[in-house]
């Protein structure tokens, strides 16, 4: 494909002189169209083909199965709650089309507000625009109820980008997952729009009215009997995701497809993903051992299928900026996220879902975990300096250093 004309066009419109303050915006669009021609100056003369844009776009692609299914499920939930509210002829595609039209404004608001602020900050600082928000901006509409009013969405995104990220210096400098900051903002600022039974299913194509439709955890936290629960939600429903919930978090299968891509490309840490499930499972088993109520007796794997557990484990906990950064730290971080999430679900009567708060809590603790892990390395080095003998290390010494 000969894109010479576009190259020349970009070179022609490059802002100069009195327009040079627009440099960040120009650079963002230019590098979107073309991988820059910059060459190495120091150090390694050759470089790996991967860059930040490529890495972030893999995350966006991994979100697509959950996004497409979530759109379909929006239509399906509305239709199955009350077919008369469904504005279209019934068909598999129209179910999806309904959801697509519901999701589109949410996604558009998220990207316009978020990218607007990102561009403004980049211009102000003279930085290049970071790609991180391409993933964040899609994640936010995927983890809110479909009935979230657009103005709330706009406020939440602005809060997340400014307070969650930019005040610390932008992508890579934040310590809280910005998408979860947005959700937490909504959760605490507008609790009536974010929880209960009347937010998860859209009443019609437009507006923020909702039809009653309980989520699995809503049913459980109301103290329902296990037989009632089972009559409403089968394992297969929860696996496929044909249940009420936040827009795109319900289908474990669609999320698993994304997880496979993230793990295969190595973009997400398998240590974190695995340990979140391990932590949740262990906590679930512990509660089973205590027993007594429906929730305590719930088989541990139900926790993986309900609510945002799978979505959080795959897409939120693995955010590399806000997770622990050492390999040992990642295990601890993931285990605790899983354990706290299940603990909050079962033991806390105030909030049915614990995943968001659990991840945000562990975001705060991740630096401490890393500090402890790295301290061990430092101690080992200090100790070695004192016993330093000038001899070559023995095989056992080497093994210990390697394992540690």
């Amino acid at each position, binding site marked *: 494909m000969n894109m010479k004309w576009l190259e020349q066009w970009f070179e022609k419109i490059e802002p100069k002189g009195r327009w040079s303050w627009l440099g960040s915006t120009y650079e963002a669009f230019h590098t979107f169209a073309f991988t820059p021609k910059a060459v190495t100056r120091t150090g390694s003369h050759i470089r790996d083909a991967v860059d930040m844009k490529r890495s972030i776009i893999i995350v966006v692609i991994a979100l697509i199965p959950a996004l497409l299914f979530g759109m379909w499920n929006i239509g399906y939930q509305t239709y199955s709650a009350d077919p008369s509210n469904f504005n279209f002829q019934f068909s598999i595609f129209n179910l999806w089309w309904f959801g697509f039209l519901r999701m589109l404004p949410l996604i558009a608001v998220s990207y316009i507000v978020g990218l607007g602020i990102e561009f403004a900050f980049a211009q102000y600082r003279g930085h290049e625009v970071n790609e991180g928000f391409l993933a964040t901006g899609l994640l936010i509409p995927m983890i809110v109820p479909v009935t979230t009013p657009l103005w709330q969405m706009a406020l939440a995104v602005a809060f997340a980008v400014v307070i969650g990220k930019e005040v610390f210096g932008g*992508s890579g400098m934040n310590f809280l997952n910005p998408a979860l900051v947005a959700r937490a903002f909504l959760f605490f600022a507008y609790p009536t729009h974010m929880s209960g039974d009347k937010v998860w299913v859209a009443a019609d194509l437009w507006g923020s009215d909702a039809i009653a439709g309980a989520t699995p955890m809503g049913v459980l936290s109301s103290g329902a009997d296990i037989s009632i629960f089972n009559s409403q939600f089968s394992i297969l429903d929860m696996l496929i995701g044909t249940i009420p919930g936040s827009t795109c978090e319900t289908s474990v299968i669609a999320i698993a497809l994304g997880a496979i891509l993230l793990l295969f490309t190595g973009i997400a840490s398998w240590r974190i993903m695995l340990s979140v499930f391990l932590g949740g499972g262990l906590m679930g088993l512990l509660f089973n051992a205590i027993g007594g109520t429906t929730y305590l007796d719930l088989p541990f794997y139900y926790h993986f299928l309900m609510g945002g557990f799978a979505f959080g484990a795959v897409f939120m906990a693995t955010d590399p900026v806000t997770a622990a950064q050492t390999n040992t730290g990642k295990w601890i971080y993931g285990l605790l996220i899983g354990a706290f999430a299940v603990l909050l679900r079962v033991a806390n009567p105030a909030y049915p879902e614990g995943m968001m708060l659990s991840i945000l809590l562990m975001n705060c603790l991740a630096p401490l975990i890393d500090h402890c892990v790295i301290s061990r390395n430092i101690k080992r080095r200090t100790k070695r300096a004192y016993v330093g003998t000038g001899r070559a290390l023995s095989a056992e010494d080497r093994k210990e250093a390697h394992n540690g």
Partner: protein
Amino acid sequence: METHHINIKKGLDVPLPGIPERHITDLRSIDLYAVKPADVVGFTPRLAVAEGDTVCAGQPLVTDKRDTRLYLPSPVDGVVHAIVRGEKRKLLEVVVKRNLAPIPSPSKREEQTSNGNHSPLLEGEGSGVRLSPVWWLLRQRPFGTIADPDAKPKAIIVSLRDTNPLAPDIDYTLKGREHDFEAGCQALDALAPLHLVRPAGPHPAGNVGTQIAALCPINKGECVWTVGAQDVATIGHWVLTGHYRPERLVALGGPAAKAPHYYRLTAGACLSRITEAQLLDPNYPQLPTTNHPLSTRIISGSPLSGTTVAPDGFLGMYDHQLCLIPEGDHYEFMGWLMPGLNKFSFSRTFLSGMLHDFLPKNFNFQFSIFNSINTNLHGSVRPFLFTGSFERVFPFDIYPLQLIKACIVGDIELQEQLGIYEVEPEDFALCEFIDPSKTEIQSIIRNALEVLRKEATA
């Protein structure tokens, strides 16, 4: 003297085309040679000769202002042809034109009997010690300076394998010089315990830094010396004959080389005859958007950590490798979105990497990957976002990302705690290569080490 076989698992072999073939062109007849003080870390040069002076091989051309015992010798008999200075009159090169007739040396090595030291590399005692012309080939870690004759190194490490992309085969380069190599080993072993290391595994297994970390990691206040394998033979030749003949087999490779193979050169040789023969390949297209006078970059040293030289430049002081890599200063349309069957990446974010594990081992991607090997940065500079990949190519008991960040913020205490003394910039070359943030990691480490070195010597 001890030979170690170590096995390194973490790392990456970057598959570069243009592997040097095993035949040799003898170019010891090259006329011009240069000594480049800037290649030697921590060396503050003071000229010992003037333009037009006659010098013999091994005679000091520049001495170190801080420690006047250290000097860089002329590689050949000849006449000082030019003294090249750069910005702020920084001494860049002392160029010597080779004389065809040998010049009798006024100061040949004295007989072993008059030598109080047990090593033939040192003459005399204490501060009056005289160093042999091969002394500069010994390098000291931490910092990578010329070995301090007063230091007590806990080991001398010689790597018997270079794992850099397109690197020469050390065994091949030592062929015919076994006798010299043996003598060199004995001379070094008299200075400190000598460890010859024959590593297995991917790059950076062949880096001395990796080997030191595996055998005898450096603590604060300690030091280790390292010598290149071919330089050991040079030392041995000097010990045996009293002649300073710094010869090297240099591997020339890379996708832009016409006929990659080995050259027999003397250290500091002018490269113009080699580039004339290898470069300017009519089949190699001049890139239309190029801002460079040449569409090919000439690298003295490894493509992962070498230095760019001009077509009529000189071989780096310690280098035994030359690479010709195409410049990559051109745009790529939607490069971040393309499937990327022709991209090489350590990550599996491109189709080439995704398919790599599924297709038969002998499936040849290289026809396409070849096209994407150039000096393009392949992206824009960003803050560190992703974690965990550096550790996969960094076989040290060190947290690489944390050490890099400590270097960026200039926290010296933290750098020491995290193991700065165990590393050199080249140990981070693979981290820099795979980094999606395109951070200049090697210069960050170099700058941090320079601050530490200046504090230590102040």
